[in-house]
């Protein structure tokens, strides 16, 4: 039982980890051991911890890219094992990978559109309008839509990755080291965007980070220690 769950929050968690353990090999050393935590909409969470504490593993579990060896990851009360993880990834959670994972041969707009198409959702307005709005939201000029990813800087690619993650309106935004390679001013801007997403758009934002500045900006910080239960700080 974590401290977080002990808090008497009124909101239902959108995402919860229920006694999750994970090891890379069957019967091998656990990277995560009996972790339980809950994530609520409208809040920004920062997961921090030293290397090897299982931050990326936690992110993979939350994003449904891998399954826990014990316990369950629950989205809106349902275990990911019971729902289609492809649908979950394409519709309910937007993941911003550390290395962005954009397709370099595609343009900014094409990369974003790919995720929109993959979600299988119907959009009420033209995709190009949505893309333009998203680019504005992540503070990128609209003309960038036609740029190839390779022609963008790291910070710009980061913003495109955020725009892509937002494009299909997911409830959860998950980012791995979103400010890792950015200068302080860009870093502040990006963090600001995430805060807006949580507080203004009522999304659940989870950031995995080493940066104390990013952690400070979060509503909740989840400290992972090597093979220790996480400590949640208010």
């Amino acid at each position: 039982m974590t401290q977080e769950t002990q808090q008497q929050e009124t909101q239902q968690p959108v995402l919860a980890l229920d006694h999750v353990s994970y090891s890379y090999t069957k019967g091998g050393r656990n990277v995560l051991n009996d972790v339980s935590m809950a994530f609520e909409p409208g809040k920004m969470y920062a997961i921090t911890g030293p290397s090897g504490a299982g931050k990326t593993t936690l992110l993979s579990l939350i994003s449904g890219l891998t399954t826990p060896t014990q316990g369950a990851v629950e989205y809106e009360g349902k275990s990911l094992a019971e729902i289609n993880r492809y649908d979950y990834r394409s519709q309910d959670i937007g993941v911003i990978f550390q290395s962005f994972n954009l397709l370099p041969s595609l343009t900014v707009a094409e990369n974003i559109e790919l995720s929109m198409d993959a979600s299988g959702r119907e959009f009420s307005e033209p995709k190009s309008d949505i893309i333009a709005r998203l680019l504005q939201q992540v503070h990128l000029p609209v003309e960038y839509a036609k740029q190839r990813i390779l022609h963008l800087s790291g910070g710009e690619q980061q913003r495109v990755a955020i725009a892509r993650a937002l494009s299909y309106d997911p409830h959860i935004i998950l980012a791995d080291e979103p400010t890792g390679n950015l200068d302080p001013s860009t870093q502040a801007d990006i963090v600001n965007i995430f805060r807006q997403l949580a507080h203004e758009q009522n999304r659940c934002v989870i950031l995995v980070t080493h940066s104390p500045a990013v952690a400070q900006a979060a509503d909740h910080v989840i400290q992972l220690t090597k093979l220790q239960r996480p400590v949640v700080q208010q």
Partner: protein
Amino acid sequence: MFVLKNAARNVTRNKGRNILIIIIVAIIAIAATVGLAILQAAQRARADGLANTTITAQIAMDRGSMMKKMEPPSTNESGSDSKPDFDAMRNALESNQITLEDYEQYANDAAVSSSYYTETAALEKTDNFQPVETSSSNAMGEASSNSNSDATAGAERNGGPDGAIPGGGNGGLGNMVNGDFSLVGFSSDQALAAAQNGAFTMVDGKAFNYTSSDDNDVIISENLATFNNVKVGDTITVANATDSAKTYKFKVLGIYKNTTDSQSFGGPMRSTASDPDNAIYTSTATVNALGLASDNTVTTETSSGNEVKTAASQLQFTYVFADKAAYDEFCNSIASQLPEGYTVQSADVDQYEQSLVPLNNLAKFAKTLLIVVLAVGAVIIVVLTIFNIRERKYEIGVLTAIGVRKGKVAAQFTTELLIVTMLGLIVGTGIGAAVCKPVSNEMLSSQITQQQTQAQSQREQFGRDMMQPGGGPGGGPDSASGEQNDEQRGSDSPTANSSAPDVPNEKRGMNRMANYVADVNATVNLKVIGIMMLIGLALTLVAALVAAVFVMRYEPLQILADRS
């Protein structure tokens, strides 16, 4: 929709790679189209060539196989004596003869649309009526008529290329032509129209009828008439070939002229009876009335003093079929009824088969080409797909990470490949269709040249083309006919010196030239296009299967972790 849209976009995105695949597929498609078209054309030529053509056939005896069967017992009987048992052989051959009655019975088969026959007997000259002689060497006359060269020449019109001897009576033309004239009895106008010496036209008078009331009515050749100063209405007198005291009188009802040149028949050693000019045409009724029916036998004494029984005339029974299918049906139904050693043979079919040799060789080549090209094509496409998938591993990782199902990713890759393959296929089939005809005809002509070169080297070896006008070495395309005859003669000669009746096909002697099918109508039709599309689909499916296996194996987390 997602799959189609992304596939279409990716096709245009990766131009270089896709153009490479299109070129490769197009090359495969060109080769496959040409191969397929040739195969189809060869099949069509086979199937259609004789489909609507009347086919004539004879029942032939494979004397070689008959004698082979007899060999073991005769060897045992003779013990250490190495001399073959000639009498046993002769008796065995004779006992297996087919009579006119048998032939007519076979003709009742439903597949036979009509039948006719001729009976050819030899006649001797009399003081008043002499044969046309064109060569001074014919002074050797009868003595030379049994020589090997004559027999060989006779065999030219005799058997098929497989050495079988048509007919079921006694004595081949080689022996029968020892007279001065050949009296040919025809059973019907159909038989007369298909006369062995070729087509003819009446110069004067008219042809005989076939009833017994028209006995002794004959028609003779224009040259023979001129030589003997005979006119229509005159009576001619000829003698029996074995008994010169016995003479026959015929009334000349008409004079005909062969429309085919008879010179090619006149080798220096030929007997005058084998000269078409010395053929006297009449009805079988007349031949029978004279006691020269094929069922009658005459006894002759050979130069070695042996008495040999031969048929008074040689019988040539011809069955006519509406088409190849009917001929095949007849072959099947009659096979069980025929005495051992006999088969149904059709010069038309043989000739047609012979003419198809280069085309068949080409078809064989095309088939091999097709198989090799498709096998290599499949391997190339699979390898390209594997490279493609490996190269785009990251893309697969990203797509699956953002929630695209693996099946969809595999479908997208398959669709991309299908689009590219189909484009290549369309381009290749188009080019293939354009070059198909000239290329296949060029290939066919090289096959024919090869065939001719083989025949020519045979001729050079045997030095035996003197009798064929215009058939000399290096005679160009014309020489094909001469060579073909050479080939036939070569294969016939072992059985040529025989006593079997000659049942030459009308079309053989003069016209049986190897008119190789020199033009193959290898056009690309809907069927070829359909098959090409199926091939394209099959190749794509094979590649898609490989793609699917790879895509399913990839885990997005692994790919992305490797990348970062």
